[in-house]
C-alpha cells in the first residue's frame, strides 16, 4: 500500500512539474500560462461568410494532475446540449490551474 502511495506521489510530482494537465492541442493555441490560463480561441479556422447562429452549446472534458482525463468534448454533444441542429461555428475554451486541473470546452454556435 505504501509503495502504491509512493508511486502515485512520484507520478503526481512528475505531472505537476511538467504541467501535464495543461497539455492539449488545437488548430489555434494562444500563449499558455504555466500557472494559470483561461482563454477562448477558434476551433473552426474557416470563418469566412460565417453567420453565427442564435444558439450556443457547450461540452467539456477535464483533466486532474494530467493523470486522469474524462469527459465528452465532442461537437455533437455540444450541439445536443444547445439544441442545435445546424452548426455554424465552433470555438473552444481552455482553463488550467497550476497544471493541477484543466478543462477543455467545445463551444458550438448554430441554429
Amino acid at each position, binding site marked *: 500500500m*505504501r*509503495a502504491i502511495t*509512493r*508511486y502515485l506521489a*512520484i*507520478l503526481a*510530482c*512528475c*505531472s505537476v512539474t*511538467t504541467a*501535464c*494537465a*495543461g*497539455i*492539449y*492541442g*488545437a*488548430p489555434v493555441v494562444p500563449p499558455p500560462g504555466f500557472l494559470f490560463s483561461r482563454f477562448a480561441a477558434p*476551433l*473552426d*479556422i*474557416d470563418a469566412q461568410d*460565417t453567420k453565427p447562429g442564435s444558439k450556443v452549446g457547450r461540452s467539456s*472534458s*477535464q*483533466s*486532474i494532475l*494530467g*493523470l*486522469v*482525463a*474524462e*469527459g*465528452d*468534448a*465532442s*461537437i*455533437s*454533444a455540444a*450541439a445536443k446540449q444547445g439544441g442545435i*441542429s*445546424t*452548426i*455554424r*461555428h*465552433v470555438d*473552444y475554451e481552455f482553463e*488550467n490551474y497550476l497544471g493541477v486541473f*484543466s*478543462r*477543455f470546452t*467545445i463551444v458550438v454556435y448554430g441554429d
Partner: protein
Amino acid sequence: MNRKRWALPSLLVGLGLCAGCFTPPLSGPLLAGPAASTATGPTRDQLPVRPSIGLLFERYRAPVQTNVKDVTLGSKTGTAAVFHIRDPFLTGLPLVTLGNQDRDMATVAAARQGNISQIDLVEVERFSVLGVYIRETIIVHGE
C-alpha cells in the same frame, strides 16, 4: 531497505509515463501512410484537437474535423475501433495493434457500420489505461 527498493522503479515508471506523453509523432518525412499511424501507435498526436491528457486514465470524446460550417447533424451514427497495446517505457511504440489503422479507412468502416451514405461529422473517442491499453473509436454522424 523497502523504501530504497521501490524508489527507483517508481521514479522510472513516473518518468516513463511522462516521457510517453511527450513522445513526438513519427510522421511526415520520416514515415508515411500506414507505417506512420503504426509508429505513433496511439494516434493522439495526429488529431487536430487534443483535450488535456490523462497519464493513468483517459476517456473522452473530441472532434476529428474542425471545418463544420453549416453542418447539419444526421440521424445515424457509425463506429469503428482500433486497439493498441503499447510499450510506454522504452520505445513508446505499440506492440499490438488491431483494427483499421488508417484513419480514412476507419471513417469509411464506421460509415459502413452505421449504414451511412453521406458523412456529416467525424469524432473520436479515446480510452486509455496507463498509456498501455488504448482504444480509439472513430464515430461518424450522417445520413
